């Protein structure tokens, strides 16, 4: 049997994942008097999509933007962050965003690198700018220090793999310490749990065939929070609405708005209408608005599309390179230096990346960050009815930390979570995986999942017949994976469980995509080719109740 630490760990607030949202949640839960553990798959100093930095933070600063918060809310929903959001969540976020900026600045993340509140990137001409430029290269280290300073216990190399829920209330979780070759199961009793596991990547084929870890967002983020929450009965929302990012080809990187240039066709003609002479204040926002521009040009034979930075001033070029460093793109900058790629004379080709799950596709929370399961909270990129990327993670992580701590204060004892039947069931599964001496690896399972997602729930075409067939194939695959996959050590056990979580996310995408009988954004239904105005302000939720799947529509809040 897999080794189990027989002493359950008792904690007021368990935070699942130590990214931006998780660390902010942990700090504020501790500030509000809770004993807090962050269980992190890697190491909080360098984990997740914010691992090596970020350089823009969505926020509302009244002294810059004026008194009308609604104007900025509207701008946010018109930006690449999109409109699949509850307005109440957007307003709550904006109201608190400047406080989080000030916190970060006082802790040592430079939010005012040029001495004033500077808003650049992802900007439309003549409209308010909502992305604060900052020096985020050290953000994970600073937040880790702050968490420790507040007495937060950090359990690195310990992914949480399952939630334990009794009578609609979360009571604990299963984790696996993967530090050594042999995995060690850890059991947690908790009064509140906050899920902050980030985006879900590795669901669809990557831009380089078979090269699974060439992703813009962190490839260790595999939708585990969404999958665990769903298995525990929590509501997920907007899961059928695909998101794609874009950036340099073929080195998948975030940070397209940090580039200052104009997207051009091979003849040097701009492809979008927004800007001809770019500057740091106003780059080319075409790719935010016309999400498929790179693919459209390519397919029509008019491509490729490049970013041309050659017409910007030397000062703006240095500003862009500085931004890319803080955005965490030092590997790309080093590579460009080594290869002699000089943005003063070269244009770099851009492309659309594969779909992933980011904010606005995930767990439904309220403005206190609570889910429909008592004691279960979520924040960051895995929230389904809100999206503001890193800034959203900071603000809602903070909110989740306070809510979780307050709940814990009101509860006396702990449940014996470790005695729940689910623990026995999951330990049996983990044991089987590690005991098998033959069978497919997680990698085979991951590739098999990606091809089904691409062919039957992709972003080119979806239809009832394709989705139904794909769902059947995916369930066949799931059965095979659960009964045959092998993981000879703790690393491969972690990867195998990631793939099982991804398969669950995939299944949810199929179920919800079948239910949304219209075309909207990248959810293209050939059997319902129009966008139905009646669904404009409606969101689709999915949850499990006593083994039954419940799909429900609700109004935007």
């Amino acid at each position, binding site marked *: 049997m897999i080794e189990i630490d027989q002493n359950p760990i008792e904690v007021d607030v368990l935070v699942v994942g130590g990214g931006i949202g998780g660390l902010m949640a942990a700090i504020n839960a501790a500030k509000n008097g809770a004993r807090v553990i962050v269980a992190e798959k890697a190491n909080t100093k360098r984990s997740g999509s914010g691992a090596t930095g970020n350089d823009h933070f969505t926020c509302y600063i009244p002294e810059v933007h004026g008194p009308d918060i609604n104007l900025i809310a509207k701008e946010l929903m018109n930006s690449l962050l999109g409109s699949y959001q509850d307005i109440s969540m957007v307003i709550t976020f904006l109201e608190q965003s400047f406080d989080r900026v000030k916190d970060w600045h006082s802790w040592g993340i430079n939010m005012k690198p040029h001495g004033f509140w500077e808003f650049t990137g992802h900007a439309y001409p003549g409209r308010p700018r909502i992305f604060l430029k900052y020096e985020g290269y050290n953000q994970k280290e600073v937040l880790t220090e702050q968490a420790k300073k507040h007495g937060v216990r950090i359990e690195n190399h310990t992914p949480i793999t399952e939630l334990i829920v009794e009578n609609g209330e979360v009571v604990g979780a299963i984790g696996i310490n993967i530090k050594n070759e042999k995995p060690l199961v850890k059991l947690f009793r908790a009064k509140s749990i906050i899920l902050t596991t980030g985006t879900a990547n590795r669901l669809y084929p990557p831009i380089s065939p078979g090269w699974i870890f060439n992703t813009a967002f962190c490839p260790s983020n595999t939708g585990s929070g969404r999958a665990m929450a769903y298995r525990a009965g929590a509501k997920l929302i907007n899961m059928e609405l695909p998101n794609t990012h874009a950036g340099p080809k073929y080195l998948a990187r975030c940070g397209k708005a940090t580039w200052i240039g104009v997207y051009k066709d*091979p003849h040097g003609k701009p492809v979008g209408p927004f800007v001809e002479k770019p500057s740091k204040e106003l780059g080319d926002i075409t790719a935010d608005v016309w999400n498929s521009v790179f693919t459209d040009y390519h397919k029509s034979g008019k491509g490729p599309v490049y970013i041309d930075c050659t017409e910007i001033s030397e000062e703006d070029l240095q500003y862009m390179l500085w931004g890319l460093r803080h955005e965490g793109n030092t590997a790309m900058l080093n590579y460009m230096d080594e290869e002699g790629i000089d943005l003063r004379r070269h244009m770099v080709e851009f492309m659309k990346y594969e779909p992933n799950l980011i904010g606005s596709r995930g767990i439904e929370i309220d403005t206190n960050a609570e889910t429909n399961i008592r004691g279960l909270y979520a924040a960051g990129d895995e929230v389904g009815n809100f999206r503001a990327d890193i800034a959203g993670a900071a603000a809602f992580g903070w909110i989740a930390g306070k809510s979780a701590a307050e709940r814990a204060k009101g509860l006396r004892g702990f449940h014996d979570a470790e005695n729940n039947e689910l623990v026995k069931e999951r330990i049996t599964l983990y044991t089987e995986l590690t005991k098998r001496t033959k069978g497919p690896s997680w990698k085979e399972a991951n590739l098999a999942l990606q091809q089904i997602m691409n062919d039957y729930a992709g972003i080119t075409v979806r239809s009832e017949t394709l989705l139904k067939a794909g769902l059947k194939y995916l369930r066949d695959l799931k059965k095979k994976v659960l009964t045959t996959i092998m993981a000879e050590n703790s690393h491969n056990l972690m990867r195998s469980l990631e793939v099982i979580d991804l398969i669950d996310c995939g299944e949810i995408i199929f179920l919800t995509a079948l239910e949304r009988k219209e075309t909207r954004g990248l959810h293209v239904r050939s059997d319902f080719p129009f966008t139905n105005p009646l669904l404009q302000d409606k969101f689709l939720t999915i949850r499990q109740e006593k083994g039954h799947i419940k799909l429900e529509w609700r109004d935007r809040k």
Partner: protein
Amino acid sequence: MPPIINKEKCNSCGICAEICPTDVFKFVGKKEPPEIKYPEECWHCNACVLDCKQSAISLRIPLPQMMLYVETKKK
């Protein structure tokens, strides 16, 4: 395959193995450099390069991830 450890410079402290977001390295003790056990799982985030106090690590971007570029058209 990425990353590459310069064994002359590496002092086997294990920081790279500790902080890697994708668990690419295997720490094999303080006497020898970590093993790069899962090179295909490298995200090329540069965390190991940035955090190595000995400046002993470099990344090699694999061929499938090469960046594509051209000379700009002169107006």
